C-alpha cells in the first residue's frame, strides 16, 4: 500500500504559487491511496493547458496529448485496454471550447472513464483569455476588452443533457472532499464527470473568494428531472455529487464467433 505522496513523480510543477491545481494533484494522490491504486495500472490522459501538465507529476502512466483531445485519447485507451484505470483531465478551455464536441460524445458514449475538469474560467497558459465558462462581463483580457459578452455555459447541466451518469462538482480549497468525490467517480461504472472549481490567482485573483462562496449540497439524485431542476437553479458554487445513475458502460459485450477472415473472398 502506498501513501498519497508516494504517487508523486518528483517532477516540479510549472504552476504559479497559489494555483488551485496543486490541491487537485493532492486530491488525486489521496484518492489513489484510498483506492490502493497500483501506479502501473493507472493512466492519466490530458490535453493542453496548465492543468493538463498534471500527468507528469504522478508516477503512474500518463499521456499528455494535443489541445482538446484528452477524451478521445482516453476513450481509445480504455476501449482497447479495459483493465486500466483511465482518468482524463484538463482545463475549461481544453474541455469545453476546443474539445467541446468530445465532451458531449463522451457523456453520451459512457465509456468507463473519469473526466476531471479543473475550471478556473480562464486560459492561463496563454496568459489570460476568456474561456467558455468566463463571466459575461469579465474585462481583464486584451483579446476581449469589453468582456466575452456571451453567457458562460454550465458544464454540469450540459453533461446531464448529454447523458453523463455521474456528475459532481468539487473545490480545490477542499482537497479531502474532492478526494472522496474522485474515489466515488472511479468506482462509478461508466463515464463520471467531475468539475473542480480550481482558482487561477494570477489572472483571476478574485477567485480566492470562492472559498467563501462554495456551499455543500446533498442533492445527490438518480432522477434526471430532479438533477436538471437543481442544476438550472444552481448558483455555480454548489459542491457535491449532483447526479448518479449508473448504466451499463460502453462498449457492450457481444457474442462473436471465430471468423475465417478469408472465407468471404472465395467464390
Amino acid at each position: 500500500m502506498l501513501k498519497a505522496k508516494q504517487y508523486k513523480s518528483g517532477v516540479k510543477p510549472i504552476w504559479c504559487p497559489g494555483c488551485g491545481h496543486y490541491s487537485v494533484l493532492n486530491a488525486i494522490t489521496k484518492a489513489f491511496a484510498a483506492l490502493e491504486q497500483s501506479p502501473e495500472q493507472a493512466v492519466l490522459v490530458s490535453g493542453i493547458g496548465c492543468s493538463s501538465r498534471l500527468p507528469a507529476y504522478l508516477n503512474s502512466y500518463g499521456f499528455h496529448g494535443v489541445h482538446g483531445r484528452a477524451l478521445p485519447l482516453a476513450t481509445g485507451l480504455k476501449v482497447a485496454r479495459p483493465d486500466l484505470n483511465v482518468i482524463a483531465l484538463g482545463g475549461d478551455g481544453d474541455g469545453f471550447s476546443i474539445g467541446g464536441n468530445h465532451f458531449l460524445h463522451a457523456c453520451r458514449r459512457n465509456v468507463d472513464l473519469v473526466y476531471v475538469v479543473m475550471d478556473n474560467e480562464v486560459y492561463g497558459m496563454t496568459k489570460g483569455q476568456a474561456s467558455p465558462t468566463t463571466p459575461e462581463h469579465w474585462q481583464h483580457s486584451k483579446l476581449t476588452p469589453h468582456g466575452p459578452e456571451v453567457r458562460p455555459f454550465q458544464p454540469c447541466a450540459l453533461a446531464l443533457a448529454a447523458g453523463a451518469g455521474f456528475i459532481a462538482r468539487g473545490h480545490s480549497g477542499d482537497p479531502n472532499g474532492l478526494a472522496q468525490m474522485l474515489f466515488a467517480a472511479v468506482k462509478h461504472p461508466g463515464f463520471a464527470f467531475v468539475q473542480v472549481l480550481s482558482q487561477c490567482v494570477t489572472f483571476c485573483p478574485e477567485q480566492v473568494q470562492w472559498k467563501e462562496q462554495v456551499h455543500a449540497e446533498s442533492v445527490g439524485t438518480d432522477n434526471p428531472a430532479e438533477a436538471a431542476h437543481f442544476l438550472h437553479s444552481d448558483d455555480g458554487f454548489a459542491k457535491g455529487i449532483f447526479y448518479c445513475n449508473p448504466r451499463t458502460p460502453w462498449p457492450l459485450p457481444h457474442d462473436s464467433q471465430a471468423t475465417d477472415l478469408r472465407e468471404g473472398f472465395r467464390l
Partner: protein
Amino acid sequence: MRNLTIAMTGSGGTGVVALGEMLLRAAAGAGYYGILRKTFGPQIRGGESAAVVRLGPRPLASFCGEIDLLLVLDWSHFQRFADEIPLSASTLIIEDVAAGARPQQLASELLAREQGVQVLDFSGLAQAQGSAHSNIALLGYVAAWLGCDGEPLQSAIDHRLHKQGAEVVALAHSVARAGAELLQQAPINLQPPDAGAAAESPWLATGNQLAGLGALEAGIRFVAAYPITPASDALEWMAGRIESLGGRLVQAEDELAAVNMAIGAGFGGVPAMTATSGPGLALMSEAMGLAVASETPLLVLDVMRGGPSTGIPTKSEQSDFNLAVYGLHGDAPHVVVAALSLADCHYSVAWATQLASERQTLVLVLSDQFLGQSMQVLPPLPSLPFHAELSRASLPPPAGADYFRYLDTDSGISPMALPGQPGGEYTADGLEHSQSAVPSARAQDHEQQLAKRQRKLQSLAASTQWGEVSALPQARILILCWGSLFPVALEAQQRLQERGTPVTVVGVRLLAPLPLESLLRSMQDMAQVLLVEQNHQAQFAHYLQSQLTQAQRAGLPELTCYSRPGPRLFTPQEIMQQVEGLPRA
C-alpha cells in the same frame, strides 16, 4: 488472349452496379478473370451511376481505353460521365426499350456508326414475370452470351439477393432465365472474350476489403474512424470481423476523435488504425504529429479522392501525396506507403501495420477510390509474414534499473513500456522531452530527440519492400510511377513490347523515406525516364527531384513527367502515347 470491356449505365436505382457485381461473379464462376469499377455521381439515390467490367482469360488489374459493349438501362445523366466511358465507332450498344431519349450530342454520332444500336425489351421481360428489375433480365442475357448463365449465374444471384428471401431469389432466377433465352432470338454481334482455364478457387474482392484483411491479419485490433467516402467500406468490412478477433471498432464523433482514439489504443499496446480520405486526413494532421513526437504506433489508411476541399468524393485521384508526405507541422519524420494494386492493398497495409509497431511511429498508407472500390477476380492471396506483435520493441525495464522511455539508442528505437508494466511508468508527450520523458524546452534535448526520430526510419529506405520492378533486358526507357498507376503501366509495358518497344516499369511502394538508392539504380542504364502520376501538380515528381543532389541529377537520364488529375482513369494507351512521344536518345 482477348479481353473485353463492358460498360453498364443507368441512373441510381436501376441497379447497374448490382448488375456489374453479379456479372463479374458469374463470369468468375465460369473461369474468367476480371475487374469491375464503379462510378457514381454525388447523389445517394437517383443520380448517375455506371459499372465497367473487363473480362479475360488472365488476371486483370487495370482498365484499357476501349469500351467494347455498352449496356444502357437509362440514358438520363449519361453525359455526366461520358468522358469516363469513351465510346468509339466500334462500341456495340444495347439499350433497354425504356432507356429514354439518347443524349442529343450522342444521338447523331450513333446514327453514323458502323455498329448500330440494338434496342431490346428487358423491362418488358421483367414485367411479364411481375418484376421491376430489368437489370436482372439484362444480366441473364449477357451471362448467356458469356456462357455463364447456368450454375455460376444462379450462385451470383443467390449471393447478392439471399438476404431478401427465397421469393425474391426465385423471381430473379426466372427473370434472368427469360433474359438468357432472349439471346437466341437476338444474338450479340460480338465475339465473347476468351475464358481462362478455370481459375483455381479464385477470390473476388475490393481493395478496401483487402486493406482491411491486411490490417486484421497483421494484428490490428483497434479501429476508430469517422464515415467518409470512399474509405467507409474498408471500415464496414472490418467492423463485421474485428470483434471475433477480440478487437473493437469505434465510430468516432469526428476525425479528430478517431485519430486520437487510435493513438490512445496504440499507447496501450494494441495495434490500432484509422481510415479516411482527403478532408479527414487534413483534420488528422495535428494528431499525426503527436504520434510522431510521442513515438506511438499509428496506422492511417487514406483512400484518396478528388480534391481539394470536398472535391470529387466518389472518384479517384492521387492528389493527397503532398499532404501525406509534407502535411505535418514541425520536423516530423514518418512513413508513407502506397498500395501498388488492388491485391497490394493487402500487402502494403500488412507491411505498414508491422512498420508502425516496429518503428513506433505514424505510417500512412495511400490507396485511392479506384483501388478501394474496384472489385477484382484474383488468385487467392498468400499469407504474409508481417505482424505487429512479432516486431514489437516493447521491453519491460530490468528490475531496479532506470527506465528511459525515449532513450537515445543507435537504432533510434527505444524500449516502449506498456501501461500495466511495473517500473515502466512514463508520460508520453507531444511536448518535446528528455530521454526520461520529462517535458523539456532545452536545445540539446530537442536536437537529440529530432535526430533519434529521424534515425529510426533511415534503414527503411533500403528495405526490399520499397517497390516493384518489372524489368525487360533491352529496355532503355523506364516508366516510373507510384500507387494505383502501377498495373496500368504494366499493361502499357506489355503492349509496347508487342510493338517492339521494351520498357521497364518501376512502381514505388515506399514514398517516405524515399528509397533513393534503389531508384537511382533502376534509372542508371536508361536513356529516358517517364514519370506518370494522377494529379495536377506533379506532386511526386517535384518531391523526387527535390531529393536529388546536383551531381546525381547530372548523372541521370532525361526525366519527363506526365501528370494529370482525375477523375478520368489512366489508360495503358495514354501512357504508351507518352512513351512514344519521348524525344529519342
